[in-house]
C-alpha cells in the first residue's frame, strides 16, 4: 500500500506557524516571576517591561513558531505515522495506526479559509500521547483519518466511497443549547463573582432609593416595611439576573462548542462532527470503549433529556482536565437514547437492589455527627435540654428519608458482557462496564458490615474504579467469580 512518495518526509503548510504561535502562548505562564519582578520594580520596571519585554516576547514567539514550522515533518507509512519535530530538543515519534484510540479533525478559524485542518490522534497505552499534525489539506486529513480508523477492518486498502451510515443522529441548535442548561459549569464560578460585590454595593443603594420612591412602596412606608422590602426585592432581582446571565452564557458556549452536532455509525466505527467556531470531528471504534455513562441531572430531568459519555483507555490517568477529549453525545431525548442503546447493544437492565443496611449505615453515621454538633450549639444558648435533644434527634428521620431515596436509586445489573450501576437522587447516572475489559476486582469487608454478612464490591476499568456497596457476601463472591470468568474468556484486545 505504501508508495515511495508516501514514505518520504512531508512538510505542513506555512500557515501552521499560526498554530505553533498560539500553542506556545500558554508556556508564557512560566514567565510570571519576571512580570512580578517588573511590577514590583515600580515605574522604571513597568517602562522597561513595555518597551523591551513585550516586543521581545512577541519576537521570540514568532521566531519559535517559524522554526517549529520549519523543522516539523511527517511521513505516512503503511502501518504507522512518523513525526519529526524540534530544533534543539529533537523528537521523533512513531505511532502505529493500530494503537489509535481516537482521531479528531479540527478546523480552527485561521485554517478554514485555506481549506486546511489539524489532524489529532490519541493513542492508548501506559504512556498516553497525543499527536497533532497542523496545517494539512482537509482532504489529506480526512483520508489519513479514514485510513487509520479502517486499519483493522480493511488492512489492505482504503475506501474512497463513503457508504450510507448504519445509524445517524443530528442535533438542532435548540437541542444543543439545552446542554448548556443541563451542564452549567459556570455555576461553579458564581462564588468567584463575590469580589464584584464592592461594585454592586453602590448600584444596590441607588436601586433601593429608586424603589423607595415608587408609590406602592411608599404606601407601605408607614408600616415600617419599606426599607426591608426594597432591599429584599433588590437582592432577589440581582440573584435572578445573575443566574439568567450565567445560564445564557453557558447555553451560548454549548451552542458554539457542540453546534451542528451530528453522529453517524459505519459498522463498528462512530463519528461525531460538531462545533460552530472550530469544527471538530471525533472518531471512536466500538471495541475501544471502556465505560459508557448515561447521565440525567436535575435540570436534564426537567428538560427530559440525557447525556452519554464514553471513555476509552487511559482517560483516567489523564484526569478530569481531559474531559473534553472524551466521546460525548451531549443531548438525547428518551427516544434518541433508546436508539443509541441499541447501537451499543446494551441489554435491557435487570436491576437488582443493594442491601437496605446502606440507609442505616449512613443515617447512623451522619445523623449522629450532625446531632452532636446541633446539641453542642444549642446547649450553651440556654435552651431547655428537651428542646435541644428534640432538635438534635430530628436529623435521624430527615437523613433517613434522604438516604432512603438514594438507596432506592442505587441498583446494579449483571448481564452477559455488561455490568451496570445506577445511582441518583433527583437526577441519575448509569454506568455500563463491558465485563470482559475489567482490570481488577476487589471485595471489601469492613468490620461492622462484615458481621451483618455484607461486603462492598469494587471493579476497576482503565477508566477508574466503580463500587457496588452493601451486597450480601455470597452475592459479592458469586459476582466476582462470574466477572472473572468473563474477563478470562474475553479473547479480544481489551483496549
Amino acid at each position: 500500500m505504501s508508495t515511495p512518495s508516501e514514505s518520504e518526509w512531508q512538510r505542513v503548510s506555512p500557515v501552521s506557524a499560526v498554530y505553533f504561535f498560539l500553542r506556545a502562548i500558554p508556556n508564557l505562564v512560566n514567565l510570571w516571576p519576571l512580570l512580578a519582578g517588573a511590577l514590583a520594580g515600580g515605574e522604571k520596571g513597568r517602562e522597561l517591561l513595555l518597551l523591551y519585554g513585550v516586543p521581545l516576547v512577541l519576537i521570540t514567539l514568532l521566531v519559535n513558531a517559524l522554526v517549529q514550522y520549519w523543522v516539523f515533518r511527517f511521513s505516512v507509512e503503511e502501518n504507522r505515522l512518523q513525526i519529526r519535530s524540534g530544533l534543539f530538543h529533537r523528537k521523533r515519534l512513531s505511532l502505529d495506526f493500530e494503537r489509535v484510540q481516537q482521531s479528531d479533525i479540527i478546523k480552527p478559524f485561521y485554517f478554514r479559509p485555506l481549506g486546511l485542518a489539524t489532524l489529532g490522534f490519541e493513542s492508548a497505552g501506559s504512556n498516553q500521547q497525543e499527536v497533532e499534525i497542523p496545517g494539512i489539506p482537509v482532504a489529506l486529513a480526512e483520508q489519513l483519518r479514514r485510513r487509520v480508523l479502517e486499519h483493522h477492518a480493511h488492512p489492505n486498502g482504503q475506501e474512497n466511497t463513503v457508504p450510507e451510515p448504519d445509524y445517524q443522529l443530528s442535533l438542532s441548535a435548540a437541542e444543543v443549547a439545552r446542554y448548556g442548561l443541563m451542564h452549567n459549569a459556570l455555576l461553579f464560578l458564581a462564588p468567584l463573582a463575590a469580589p464584584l460585590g464592592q461594585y454592586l454595593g453602590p448600584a444596590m443603594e441607588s436601586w433601593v432609593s429608586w424603589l423607595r420612591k415608587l408609590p406602592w412602596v411608599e404606601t407601605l412606608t408607614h408600616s415600617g416595611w419599606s426599607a426591608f422590602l426594597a432591599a429584599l426585592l433588590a437582592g432577589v432581582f440581582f440573584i435572578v439576573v445573575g443566574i439568567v446571565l450565567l445560564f445564557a452564557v453557558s447555553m451560548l458556549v454549548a451552542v458554539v462548542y457542540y453546534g451542528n452536532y451530528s453522529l453517524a455509525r459505519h459498522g463498528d466505527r462512530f463519528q461525531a462532527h460538531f462545533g460552530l467556531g472550530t469544527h471538530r470531528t471525533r472518531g471512536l471504534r466500538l471495541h475501544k470503549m471502556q465505560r459508557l455513562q448515561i447521565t440525567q441531572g436535575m435540570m436534564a430531568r426537567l428538560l427530559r433529556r440525557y447525556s452519554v459519555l464514553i471513555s476509552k483507555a487511559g482517560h483516567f490517568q489523564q484526569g478530569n482536565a481531559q474531559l473534553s477529549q472524551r466521546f460525548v453525545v451531549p443531548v438525547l431525548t428518551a427516544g434518541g437514547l433508546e436508539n443509541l442503546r441499541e447501537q451499543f447493544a446494551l441489554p435491557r437492565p435487570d436491576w437488582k437492589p443493594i442491601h437496605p443496611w446502606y440507609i442505616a449505615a449512613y443515617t447512623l453515621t451522619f445523623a449522629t455527627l450532625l446531632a452532636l454538633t446541633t446539641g453542642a450549639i444549642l446547649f450553651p444558648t440556654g435552651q431547655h435540654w428537651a428542646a435541644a435533644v428534640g432538635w438534635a434527634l430530628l436529623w435521624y428521620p430527615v437523613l433517613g428519608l434522604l438516604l432512603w431515596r438514594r438507596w432506592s436509586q442505587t441498583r446494579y445489573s449483571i448481564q452477559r458482557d455488561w455490568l451496570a450501576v445506577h445511582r441518583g437522587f433527583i437526577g441519575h447516572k448509569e454506568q455500563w462496564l463491558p465485563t470482559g475489559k475489567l482490570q481488577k476486582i476487589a471485595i471489601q469487608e469492613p468490620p461492622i458490615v462484615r458481621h451483618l454478612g455484607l461486603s462492598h464490591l469494587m471493579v476497576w476499568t482503565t477508566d477508574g474504579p466503580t463500587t457496588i456497596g452493601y451486597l450480601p457476601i455470597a452475592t459479592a463472591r458469586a459476582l466476582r467469580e462470574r466477572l472473572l470468568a468473563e474477563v478470562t474468556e474475553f479473547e479480544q484486545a481489551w483496549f
Partner: protein
Amino acid sequence: MATTLEDPSLESRQLPPLEPEPWEPIHPRYRNVLRLRLLVVGLAVTLGPWIPVIFSSTVTPFSWLPSTAGALVVLFLATVWVPRKVRRTQYLLRDRDVHLRTGCWWFRTVSVAINRIQHVEITQGPLERLNGLSELVIYTAGGFKSDVKVPGLETDLAQRLKAHLTRRATEEAGPTADETWEEDRHVDAERE
C-alpha cells in the same frame, strides 16, 4: 465474547466458593519486617516528645505522658496487629487468576485475571533483605493504584511466582500477544 455462564440471572449458590481453595499464607518472618518498621516509628514517637522538654528544661510528671501513650500504641500494634495482619495476608494462585486477601480488621480480597496483568515486579527493601523476603507487585491497567502487592514472600518463591505469572500472562494473551503485551512499543518518542 461467549462465556461458560449462559444463565443471565445470578444464582449465588451455584458457583464454587473460594473458601475450600488452598489459600497460601505469607512467610511468618514478615512479622519481623513489620516489627522492625514499628521499632523505627516507636523510637520516633517515644523520643520525639522529649525534644521540647529538653529545650525548655522543665520536667513535669506530665512530660512522660505523650511518649508513654506513643509507646503503648506501638506495643499494641507490635503484639496484636502484626501477627494478625501477617496471619490474615494470604494469596491464592489459580489457573487463570490471582487473589490476595489482606486486612486485619478491614478485610479485602483483590482478584486479577492473569490475562489482564501488565507486568510483574519484585521489590525488596533493606528490612526485607535482612529477613530474606521480597514483595511481589502485580500491575494492571486499571489506573491509579491498580496494583496487587503480595508482601513477605521468600525471595526465591517470589522469583518463581514472577516467572510463572509472566509466562502465563504471555500465554493467555495468545494470538493478541503483540497487542496486549508489548504495550509500550507502539508509541515511542526517541531523541536523535
